[in-house]
């Protein structure tokens, strides 16, 4: 079975500061890795995903995540956050070769303060 652990339930940061949201997973088989974001009063949206190839993946709004197989981690980073990044971020995995149902972590609430 797969599981996902997000170590921080809340992360408060000041605008323009760097941020890292941590995600570790456990799986006996190969997985795909995802970060989803939920802005206030909106549905979940895909932020970025790792399928294969380069272990560093980027989103269009400046976030990046690095797949680390040895540490079974997929931490999300941004060098300089904006107020508009305030949201809840969910790390998720799906088993390779599966029908695609996602296993989510509990989420991390990022709060960016001016």
């Amino acid at each position, binding site marked *: 079975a797969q599981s*996902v652990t*997000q170590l921080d*339930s809340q992360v408060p940061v000041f605008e323009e500061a760097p941020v890292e949201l941590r995600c570790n997973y456990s799986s006996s088989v190969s*997985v*795909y890795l995802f970060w*989803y974001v939920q802005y206030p009063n*909106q*549905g*979940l*949206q*895909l932020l970025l*995903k790792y*399928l294969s190839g380069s272990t560093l993946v980027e989103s269009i709004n400046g976030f990046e995540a690095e797949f680390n197989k040895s540490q079974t981690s997929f931490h999300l980073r941004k060098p300089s956050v904006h107020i508009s990044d305030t949201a809840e971020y*969910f790390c*998720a995995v*799906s*088993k*390779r*070769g*599966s*029908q*695609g*149902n*996602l*296993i*989510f*972590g*509990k*989420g991390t609430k990022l709060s960016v303060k001016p």
Partner: protein
Amino acid sequence: GAGVSQTPSNKVTEKGKYVELRCDPISGHTALYWYRQSLGQGPEFLIYFQGTGAADDSGLPNDRFFAVRPEGSVSTLKIQRTERGDSAVYLCASSIRQGGSREQFFGPGTRLTVL
């Protein structure tokens, strides 16, 4: 184009009642997933449809929960004899095809409150 829509957005019911939650996936998406998100938790998988058939219902908590997708598009999640513990946000997602690498597009959810 339109995204995934879910109705109602909010549903308040009394313990023991029957409820139906509807999901309209993105047109052309053959894969449809239901998840449940309890307070302070991430979404948890309930059931997956490929076309009209429920290909995997292993996440349904018990036999009070049932879902259908009779024409391969709209899906309805049905909960019988609701209990207070069923209170949660029910999320629907669709994907153009099945597969672990496919992006899932989520609806806004239905917030179910059982009094």
